[in-house]
């Protein structure tokens, strides 16, 4: 958003009056303070709480700054409780979901946008129709399908495929990928085809290099989506050794010492916060693309 702003609700003249300026700074400062207190302070409380000793945490009067520092609760949570394993599980689930979604959804969107097969529009319509369905109403039949996949007759429970494959049926990905591919001029593809490139070659060497922004959006949403998910992995990964950190934290919450639990919560959040800090723009762009479509 540009810093030289257009005219908004309050007129520049009203802003520049003495009371206007005072009010502006007053509201601005209280908002900054309020937001910091409401949205940043809880994160500090979590990360800082993990540094306190168990007795200090359990004290009836919480301390703003830890009296005694115990950074070892982070390493204890990481090593002793086995959070490193759960963390790696999450990493595996997220990486696989990212890869499968890119492979499946990019190929599908490319076919629908540029190769235009027979009945392509009907297929696209049926895919987009699923966007209107409440996910939770499909929870039970999808779960039962995963336990015994039709045609293939395999049980995906306790395998990462139970996360990866359903994630590929993602109409939002197909929608924004196809819309982006539609904007790539056909002449560009035709000239590549003249040079003897097949459809796969055209996709890899012409379409994909032009599509970096939209690939970034799809990638971020794929990784963040799997990382945040709780209910689905809780259902399809009942084996504790295979669970992601989100499910494991909830299961271990009753048994872990409070400071180690907090350390675990921080560790489960850090990758997402880092992704957010790096890709803020893409995330916000994708957010508004998804809601204000058209």
């Amino acid at each position, binding site marked *: 958003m540009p810093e030289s702003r257009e005219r908004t609700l309050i007129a520049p003249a009203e802003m520049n009056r003495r009371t206007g300026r005072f009010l502006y700074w007053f509201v601005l400062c209280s908002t900054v303070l309020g937001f*910091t207190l409401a949205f940043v302070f809880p994160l500090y409380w979590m990360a800082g709480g993990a540094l306190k000793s168990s007795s200090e945490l359990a004290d009836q009067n919480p301390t703003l700054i830890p009296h005694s520092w115990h950074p070892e609760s982070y390493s204890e949570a990481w090593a002793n409780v086995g959070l490193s394993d759960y963390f790696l599980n999450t990493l595996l689930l997220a990486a696989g979901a990212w890869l499968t979604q890119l492979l499946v959804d990019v190929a599908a969107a490319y076919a629908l946008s540029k190769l235009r097969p027979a009945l*392509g529009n009907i297929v696209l319509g049926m895919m987009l129709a699923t966007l209107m369905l409440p996910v939770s109403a*499909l929870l039970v039949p999808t779960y039962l399908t995963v336990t015994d996949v039709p045609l293939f007759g395999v049980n995906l429970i306790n395998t990462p495929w139970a996360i990866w494959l359903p994630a590929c049926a993602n109409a939002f990905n197909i929608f924004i990928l196809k819309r982006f591919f539609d904007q790539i001029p056909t002449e560009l593809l035709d000239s590549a085809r003249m040079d003897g490139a097949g459809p796969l070659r055209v996709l890899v060497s012409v379409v994909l290099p032009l599509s970096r922004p939209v690939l970034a959006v799809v990638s971020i949403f794929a990784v963040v989506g799997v990382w945040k998910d709780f209910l689905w992995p809780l259902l399809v990964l009942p084996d504790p050794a295979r669970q992601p950190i989100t499910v494991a934290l909830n299961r271990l919450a009753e048994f872990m010492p409070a400071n180690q639990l907090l350390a675990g919560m921080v560790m489960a959040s850090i990758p997402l916060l880092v992704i*957010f800090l790096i890709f803020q723009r893409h995330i916000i762009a994708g957010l508004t693309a998804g809601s204000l479509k058209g």
Partner: protein
Amino acid sequence: MNNPSRRRRRLSEHLVAYSFLGAGVLCFALFSWYPIVRGWLLGFQEVTFSQPATWVGWDNYRRLFADPLFVTAWKNTGYFTLLALVFGFAAPFLTAVVLNEFRHARSYLRMTVYLPVMLPPIVTMLLWRWFYDPGPGLFNNVLETFHLPAQQWLESENISMISLVLVSTWANMGTTTLIYLAALGSIPGEVYEAAELDGASIRQRLWHVTIPQMRFILMITLLLQIIGTMQVFIEPYVLTGGGPDDATVTVLLLLYRYAFVYNDFGMASAMSTVLFIVLGLFAAVYLRLTRGKG
């Protein structure tokens, strides 16, 4: 015109296109389209893991409507949705209107309000469970500092639902706020200038310019929010478990219990169908609105 070689070439083009589309279609077919049909059929079946499903007609529905918890769950969900609209609808709108006036600290404020959205929901829930803790919990300590009575945040029938809505609002308002900010940014400044020339005060401009200009996006987010909050699950699952005395049993929590605690997939599917129909009504309104807009 229609010589055989040309037809054959077109057929092979379609085959190539479908080889790109195939994996996507298969994922949708297995994990989206088939479960839609199956979910509806399952509502009329008795399903156990050991035996093949048997057709029981409307039995599941009869049992469902006879379960007093079914009514409780819908009442609670309605109450949650209503509260979530009171907090979750007003808060992001007012926040966005205020943020839109600021010339300073814009990116900081936009970033902080979105921070909770990036946390894994399970971390948010565990963090707030700790805040709500009647002993060392932060909230009661703050209340005590101001000499206000301590609250039984999650243990009291009267306010446990409000506690859940507070978490939910905190965790989700970033998304809507950023959507509103994008929409506010696209209101042309001339409209405000014209209103100002007509002598409209700031409050009148908000009422007669900002809100009408935002009407469409407000309707859309209202519907999406209703559809989203009616599927509330993780808040009651982690924070209250449906208690105290079933005061926070929601539709999805009850559905989860039918399916994954009692293994009564038929009854859970009947409930899914009911949920599907109710949310479908809102989705239909949403579709009408967005289609009318182009």
